[in-house]
């Protein structure tokens, strides 16, 4: 059996693409570089939209990236069921692309925050979280200035009611996100966005003092193998 192929997207200003590719490789999959200017998903089995400041965060975080050639391919593919994970700026892009509802706004404290954050896994029914346990607490780094999740009341009710809040901040809300939301999924559960960084928590030697990020990659690989 050939290894699963996970695409890692690079926009101008993407920063965590090297980390994302490494995390994919460490999990035993092939990391396939995807370039923002190409109309080509290279037949990958899943896509990782990493963090950064794509297009310098000009206008609004993720607002320009969503119009890139690659995104015009990715949006319909995701709507058709392709597993997609967006972290940090990737999450912001998924919201701007309307693959996920709501928006990410300036942190409540107005400062950029980099810290190791406790997160509670609220749903294991997504493509990216099946290997966790419901209610499990994990530690992942956060590092963002605009991570405060907001959505209108009806959207929040729907997200909560449909079990689409995938991650919640535990031990203190770092950015003022509504309902302590750290990450959400679409209805089908194939598209997940979160502010924390699983790719920075996969090795003992580097990154956060946890390897809890591995669960994202083992989850998606099991799913792809069983598909």
């Amino acid at each position, binding site marked *: 059996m050939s290894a699963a192929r996970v695409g890692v997207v690079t926009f*101008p200003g993407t*920063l965590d693409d090297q980390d994302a590719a490494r995390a994919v490789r460490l999990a035993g999959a092939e990391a396939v570089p995807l370039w923002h200017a190409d109309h080509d998903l290279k037949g990958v089995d899943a896509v990782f939209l990493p963090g950064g400041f794509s297009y310098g965060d000009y206008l609004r975080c993720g607002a320009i990236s969503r119009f890139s050639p690659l995104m015009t391919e990715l949006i319909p593919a995701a709507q058709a069921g392709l597993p997609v994970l967006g972290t940090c700026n990737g999450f912001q892009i998924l919201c701007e692309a309307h693959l996920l509802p709501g928006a990410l706004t300036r942190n409540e404290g107005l400062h*950029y925050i*980099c810290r190791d954050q406790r997160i509670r896994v609220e749903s294991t029914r997504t493509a990216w979280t099946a290997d966790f346990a419901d209610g499990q607490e994990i530690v992942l780094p956060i590092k963002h200035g605009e991570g405060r999740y907001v959505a209108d009341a009806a959207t929040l009710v729907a997200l909560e009611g449909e079990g689409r809040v995938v991650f919640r901040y535990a031990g203190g809300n770092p950015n003022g996100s509504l309902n302590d939301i750290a990450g959400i999924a679409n209805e089908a559960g194939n598209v997940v966005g979160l502010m924390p960084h699983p790719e920075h928590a996969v090795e003992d030697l580097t990154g956060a003092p946890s390897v809890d990020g591995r669960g994202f990659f083992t989850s998606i690989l099991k799913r792809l193998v069983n598909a």
Partner: protein
Amino acid sequence: MALDSVKRAQETPEERQPYAELGMKDDEYQRVREILGRRPTGSELAIYSVMWSEHCSYKSSKVHLRQFGTKAPESEALLVGMGENAGVVDVGDGWAATFKIESHNHPSYVEPHQGAATGVGGIVRDIMSMGARPVAVMDSLRFGGADQPDTRRVLPGVVEGISHYGNCLGLPNIGGEVVFDPCYIGNPLVNALCVGLLRKDQIKLATAPGPGNKVVLFGARTGADGIGGASVLASATFEDESQAKRPAVQVGDPFMEKLLIECCLELYQADVVVGIQDLGAAGVSCATTELAAKGTGGMRVDLNLVPLRDPSLRPEEILMSESQERMMAVVTPDDIPAFMAICDKWDVPATVIGEVTDSGRLVMTWDGEVIVDIPPGTAADEGPVYERPFHEPAGQAALNADGPERLPRPADLRETLLTLLGSPNLGSKEWVTSQYDRYVRGNTVLAQPADAGMLRISEAMPGAEETTRGIALATDGNGRYARLDPYSGAQLALSEAYRNVAVTGAKPLAVTNCLNFGSPEDPEVMWQFSEAVRGLADACRTLGVPVTGGNVSFYNQTGSTAINPTPVIGVLGVIDDVARRVRSGFPEAGLRVLLLGETREEFGGSEWAHVVHGHLGGLPPQVNLEAERALAAVLAEAAARGLLEGSHDLSDGGLAIALAEACLSRGVGCTVTLPGDDAFTDLFSESAARALVCVRPDAFDAFAELCVRHEVPCSGLGLTGGDALVVEGVLDVPVAELREAHTSALPRVFG
């Protein structure tokens, strides 16, 4: 106004020129006239004035800095020494590291956010221009007193500027310093360090060889940033005050810089760059003269081709603009298409503005007329050199005589510990460092509050050879020590940075420095400078670590009051197996806690004297370089053999602060007994060449043997464990109480 061409300059030899407004002395201007055999054009005057400025020419410091070369220790590791954009050292397995620290002090006072941000941008481009991928940054920051109102303006802006620019660039910030002292209230010090990695055979240099090769300007368009005084050249007459002064502080765009980084790395990979130089201070003037001077010797540039953000700029202004995010490359004509294609891929504007010649002249044209025609070496390398007079400050002897012996000793050492631990200089810096991304790129092995930052080399550049090695970096400086004795103050800064690298298990290899001083025209400041340089050069020789480059920042003074002399020293080390790195705290209970080194009664310039008594006098701690060397040897070997569970440098605040920090690191307490007969000295003295380590009981004998072999004193203090810091018979503080004092220090002031 009429274009001031070379032809016009020949025709109007007596025209009055605003050289004094540009900071040139009479004799310097006369020398330019002698070199050219005529008066300079406005553009030439722009070039000479900025290239011969203190900042670019090191005219006051050069005669002293030569010692870094003449006293340099033998080092097989040094690949590129001083004089290039940054030094390069061999870190093994075919890899090289390049690193440098540079000041952006004055801009950061005027406009803290942009000043600090462009400081990061500038040092990152220096590293890029060596052919390296920048892999991390650090910042050594000094502010006025934490409770002084202006500090609340400057510090948040500086931190935000570094945070925004560095985070957008995707470079982990892995360490540095934050220090408060009222002497910096009008002159904050913002010293930015960047480190890059490259393959040993891929070093790039700032040179323009090969007549016919093209000169390419790429990156951001040129605007009116940082022109400052040059606007005087562009006004109708220089008495004309109607023309608005151009802004003196540059504005940064980290997004363009990130594109430039990736673009440059792809250009290097494609091997389409003959020579490269970043545009920093003095912009196009500096890049063209330096490239030409180090190459075949000639260059022709059409300034009309420089892409402008502001089309009204005059040639004099284009030459002096300090617009950020620009680079200049020399490229063979055959490689131009490939070069341009890569720039295009990264959306980086690139323009051929001239070519290399063998004329020995730098010739620039504007609207078809020659406006610059100079031998480039006269601007780049042959600037004025001053032997400034210096003498010991009038009050120095009295300052040294006013020792800390007269200060009353505390009765309650528990309270002293909590006071110091909660003071701005010793309290947690998390308020600052949590605004920096320390994880990006995924190679950060150690970051603040570790004693040194450490990076894995192997995955720094995709496709390059695997290695188990890592690099470690630390910066240190102590203005109070240097004020008391600049010679030993500089040596103590080096000792501390060296020790901070050593405690991680890395072997110190090379040095960079940022020398922050007052006005060189003040003989007392010049004495501090000459003493500090002499001390640093001597210590580098003894420790076997060469200076690879650095930066001098003069004129850090308000009126006639200079800052404390503040040499900031960066040390880079290498660890053979990065998985063997040693962390700074107590990881678990049941480990033996040991103190390495010798403790003397040394409180001159100490944190205790500063915080508790507001006193500065006497002499700083004794320097003992042989002891530093032996200590580093013990730590490196112990780390390589896996004998150490934790290792922490002793410095400001002494053993008491080191113990508290070791407990705070992972919430593991300890119970210790002091080795000496004076608890106050044992706990708070700042003697150098010491470290606190913890070892497994079964590793103790082997470790003790190592200490004996290297003649490093080793005292058993006690054991880790419990949830309090207990010093038998002296103090007992729960870790939670330590944490409260430590973490509230900065939020109390900055919110």
